[in-house]
């Protein structure tokens, strides 16, 4: 990266800066003439009644002359304005490109940081620097050359004019400039120092917020919110006092500037006046000089501001860039390059020679490690925690560069291989795997995305747009790779047809005991786009399910089916009315009656007032039941129709009107009452508020709603239809086609078992798993449990079919039974290829061809399990004897 902002600007935008400069100069003449013309209009057209009125050599009539001049004025203003517009847009583009380039470079540097550097920088700080602090730099780029050129030029012109009038007065006009030039930077430097502190403090704030998000459970579990608030308040306080000091200094500068500017007229009037009285200069030139001085102050002030910004920006740039240049920054080629020769891994020898690694404090985490492993081999690393097992796996996975010695495979130094090349051969699983925000499938396939392998779908149609994007990316020195291209390199793992790919994914999920979880996600999921043909299969399952339920009276009681002609007592009033699922966000089940169409149907059937009365009764019950409970009571979440903060409002509404005087309420209050009953489930809430008559009327509303649905809203609801798949409802809901009944013991478990049987019989379990693969994992995999995350991480690496799989305590979070299954599955999947596994539990070491025992960063024993065990028992025996 360029060490200073000017080098950065010149290196990447000198041509654009020249163009900006040219445009600036071009905008001068129209500006000058648009100032000149009014004078001409006043003096000649209006002030001189005798003429002659000469326009471009033509003698014209007076009114014509006036209108021609006015027209000319308008034209000049227009040209000047347009030039300014072009200039501004262009400067904006240049600034934005430079900003994009800078952010890209910073982000690229983050990707090149050595892993150990992430222990020193916080995520919040990096976010703050890349996003917020660069913003000011971008804005400056557009002004960097144009402003000093333009304002400096103006200043110089006026100064020349003043000096031509009278050298002494000219001197008087600038006599105070040296004072300003001396004084202002001094003060400015203090302001900048404070500004720097403020930047650091804001970064610290960002860090704190980031930390709060990542430790939110700890905060709640320890009840330390008050402490955290105090800490945050203290930081905000620090910023406040810095700002306060900045204000004092900044406005002092302003005051001095203004004062010195006003000293000018003082000098003109005293010295100039004296000279006029003595007759050395004329009054006219004094007036002209005073006027010129007034014009001087604007560009002078601009130049001073520019200077201040310049100083600020320069510091900011250097401060930011220095944060992104840690020692041992990886070369770009290592991160994004490709190797010319990838060593063959099978049949090669993995050789570790005199390997050493120092930690942050300079202590040896690994020391003098020598290993020679003929690949393929399954190697166990054992040793107590802190023996260097983890560090050794990190080095062997190529993630951490050793501080001494080297690792070679087939004679090639492992740490010289570019990461994308290495990643196709070698995979790593740690005990703290991180997932990406995205679907399970996105995560599972993440390891196959080293380079784009095919253009995005529909690439031809969007050719023009893609070319433009590409040109623009290159203009800012960004990556021209398309993020929406096909990145998954299926060829690399030898999977061609979609069916092959899917069954390989499911196989690996089964191997790591994750298939059942994904099946559960699938039941809750909707059909992924592009897989609509699965609907007919699931519809068959619905039929089979219906038969199964009908065959056994005990089962039939567990599900209340969706029937277009019957009210479903296990569904909410809203669900009964809509009898479908909203598509998009036109209809919201939470606020159904506020939609105009719903409202008109309710009004037509006279349901508005009746439902509002139900709402009133419901509110009464809620207020009665819940008003004594503390606000944070979990019952609110689980049972209440009204949020605790809304309870007082409902109390007020109940107090304002009795049940037969609801028209006295304000419209928004009526609205709130009307919304309440839509959440009622007859079978669950047992309030007796929605009786059979009302149910029948809601059924009529259901039919009416559908009949009168305006054409524009037809796509907004996916209605339940016994013969059709509902794309907006979950797989489970589609197959069950009903609601699991309240009041049946273990209904959920029993229904799930029958459902699984039906799907199994029809071979649809894989289909459900496929749908489950489209489930979102949440930010960093937060929607998955820890074991689920760990299993997915293992599946992700197994799926890549690496030549060497390096693991560190990768099954430690699983429970004992699953740990066994998954471990066996990994070793079986890697048969004929290599595994290097740092084990938390040495008892599994007998499963490996070779065992390496580490202690305090050194290898203390190695060999087959038998050899090592014999030596270990001998050592124990010796120790016991000694």
């Amino acid at each position, binding site marked *: 990266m360029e060490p200073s902002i000017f080098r950065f600007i010149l290196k990447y935008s000198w041509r654009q800066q020249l163009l900006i400069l040219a445009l600036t100069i071009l905008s001068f003449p129209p500006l000058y003439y648009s100032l000149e013309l009014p004078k001409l209009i006043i003096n000649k057209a209006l002030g001189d009644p005798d003429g002659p009125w000469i326009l471009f050599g033509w003698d014209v009539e007076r009114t014509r002359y006036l209108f021609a001049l006015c027209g000319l004025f308008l034209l000049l203003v227009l040209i000047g304005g347009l030039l300014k517009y072009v200039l501004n847009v262009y400067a904006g583009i240049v600034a934005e490109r430079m900003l994009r380039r800078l952010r890209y470079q910073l982000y690229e540097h983050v990707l090149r940081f050595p892993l150990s550097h992430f222990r020193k920088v916080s995520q919040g700080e990096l976010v703050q620097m890349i996003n917020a602090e660069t913003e000011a730099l971008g804005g400056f780029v557009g002004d960097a050359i144009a402003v000093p050129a333009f304002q400096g030029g103006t200043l110089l012109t006026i100064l020349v004019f003043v000096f031509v009038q009278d050298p002494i007065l000219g001197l008087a006009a600038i006599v105070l400039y040296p004072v300003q030039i001396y004084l202002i930077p001094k003060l400015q430097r203090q302001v900048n120092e404070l500004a720097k502190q403020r930047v650091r403090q804001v970064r610290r704030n960002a860090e704190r917020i980031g930390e709060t998000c990542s430790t939110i459970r700890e905060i709640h579990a320890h009840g330390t919110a008050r402490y955290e608030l105090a800490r945050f308040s203290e930081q905000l306080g620090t910023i406040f006092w810095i700002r306060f000091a900045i204000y004092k200094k900044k406005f002092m500068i302003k005051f001095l500037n203004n004062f010195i500017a006003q000293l000018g007229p003082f000098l003109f009037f005293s010295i100039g006046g004296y000279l006029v009285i003595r007759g050395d200069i004329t009054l006219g030139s004094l007036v002209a000089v005073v006027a010129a001085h007034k014009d001087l102050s604007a560009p002078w002030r601009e130049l001073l501001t520019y200077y201040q910004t310049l100083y600020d920006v320069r510091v900011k740039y250097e401060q930011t860039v220095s944060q992104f240049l840690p020692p041992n920054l990886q070369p770009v080629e290592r991160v994004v390059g490709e190797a010319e020769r990838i060593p063959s891994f099978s049949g090669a020898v993995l050789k570790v020679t005199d390997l050493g690694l120092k930690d942050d404090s300079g202590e040896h985490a690994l020391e003098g490690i020598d290993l020679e492993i003929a690949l393929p081999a399954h190697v166990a690393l054992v040793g107590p925690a802190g023996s260097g097992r983890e560090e050794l796996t990190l080095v062997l996975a190529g993630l951490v560069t050793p501080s001494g010695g080297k690792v070679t495979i087939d004679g090639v130094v492992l740490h010289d291989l570019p990461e994308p090349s290495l990643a196709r051969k070698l995979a790593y699983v740690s005990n703290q795997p991180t997932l990406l925000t995205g679907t399970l499938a996105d995560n599972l396939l993440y390891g196959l995305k080293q380079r784009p392998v095919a253009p995005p779908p529909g690439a031809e149609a969007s050719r023009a747009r893609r070319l433009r994007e590409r040109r623009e990316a290159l203009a800012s020195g960004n990556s021209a790779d398309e993020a929406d291209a096909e990145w998954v390199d299926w060829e690399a793992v030898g999977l061609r047809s979609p069916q092959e790919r899917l069954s390989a994914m499911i196989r690996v999920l089964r191997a790591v005991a994750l298939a059942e979880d994904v099946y559960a996600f699938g039941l809750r999921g909707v059909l992924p786009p592009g897989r609509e043909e699965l609907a007919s299969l699931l519809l068959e399952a619905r039929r089979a399910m219906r038969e199964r339920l009908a065959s056994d009276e005990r089962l039939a009681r567990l599900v209340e089916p969706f029937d277009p002609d019957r009210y479903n007592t296990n569904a909410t009033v809203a669900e009964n009315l809509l009898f479908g699922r909203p598509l998009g966000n036109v209809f919201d089940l939470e606020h159904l009656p506020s939609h105009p169409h719903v409202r008109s149907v309710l009004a037509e059937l006279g349901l508005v007032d009746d439902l509002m009365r139900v709402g009133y009764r419901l509110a009464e019950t809620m207020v009665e039941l819940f008003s004594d409970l503390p606000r944070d009571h979990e019952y609110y979440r689980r*049972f209440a129709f009204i949020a605790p903060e809304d309870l007082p409002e409902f109390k007020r509404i109940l107090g304002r009107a009795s049940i037969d005087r609801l028209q006295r309420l304000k419209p928004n209050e009526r609205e709130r009452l009307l919304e309440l009953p839509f959440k009622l489930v007859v079978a669950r809430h047992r309030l007796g508020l929605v009786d059979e008559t009302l149910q029948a009327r809601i059924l009529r509303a259901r039919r009416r709603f559908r009949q009168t649905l305006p054409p524009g809203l037809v796509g907004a609801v996916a209605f339940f239809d016994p013969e059709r798949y509902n794309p907006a409802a979950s797989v489970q809901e589609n197959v069950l086609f009903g609601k699991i009944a309240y*009041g049946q013991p273990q209904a959920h478990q029993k229904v799930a078992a029958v459902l699984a049987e039906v799907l199994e019989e029809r071979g649809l379990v894989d289909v459900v798993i496929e749908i489950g693969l489209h489930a979102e994992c949440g930010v960093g995999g937060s929607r998955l449990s820890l074991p689920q995350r760990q299993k997915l991480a293992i599946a992700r690496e197994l799926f890549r079919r690496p030549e060497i799989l390096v693991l560190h305590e990768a099954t430690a979070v699983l429970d004992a039974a699953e740990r066994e299954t998954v471990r066996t599955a990994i070793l079986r999947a890697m048969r004929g290829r290599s595994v290097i596994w740092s084990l938390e539990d040495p008892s599994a070491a007998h499963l490996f061809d070779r065992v390496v025992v580490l202690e305090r960063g050194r290898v203390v024993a190695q060999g087959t399990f038998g050899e090592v065990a014999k030596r270990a028992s001998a050592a124990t025996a010796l120790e016991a004897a000694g």
Partner: protein
Amino acid sequence: MTLRRDVEALRAIPLFAKVEPARLKLLAFTSEHVDFEPGEVICRQGEPGDAAYILLEGTADVLVETPEGRVKVASLGKNDIVGEIAILCGVPRTATVVATSRVHTLKIDKDGFLNLVTQFPHVAVEVMQELAARLHHTTQRLTEISLQIDTKKTTRE
């Protein structure tokens, strides 16, 4: 079956007799109705208990599994409560309860019951009194039985 009738049923149970109606209404509202067919198991000995059941209708047998087989120790009817011991002291179910006719129950989950006990001291006192009474009853029976055993021993000697 509406909430009001549930509340009446709850009031008929000695344990809740003195609890004010509003509390009972909340308890009823947060509870679930569960129906069992004759022969269906309401709770099974040894399994962890997560709820207590109040029999609103129907009858059930309380069975204890012993090495000699199942022994019926009690039968339950309308307004009886079962399963509260397991949720109060966190032990597994102490007996198996099987419906002998169609049973209509109100299922009070652990949280609901404990909430009632912890947040409304008078309910806790009620529960304590009820349990103390039962303990007293059990102790009395134990005394009677040990006396009987002693008497038998003495006679045998």
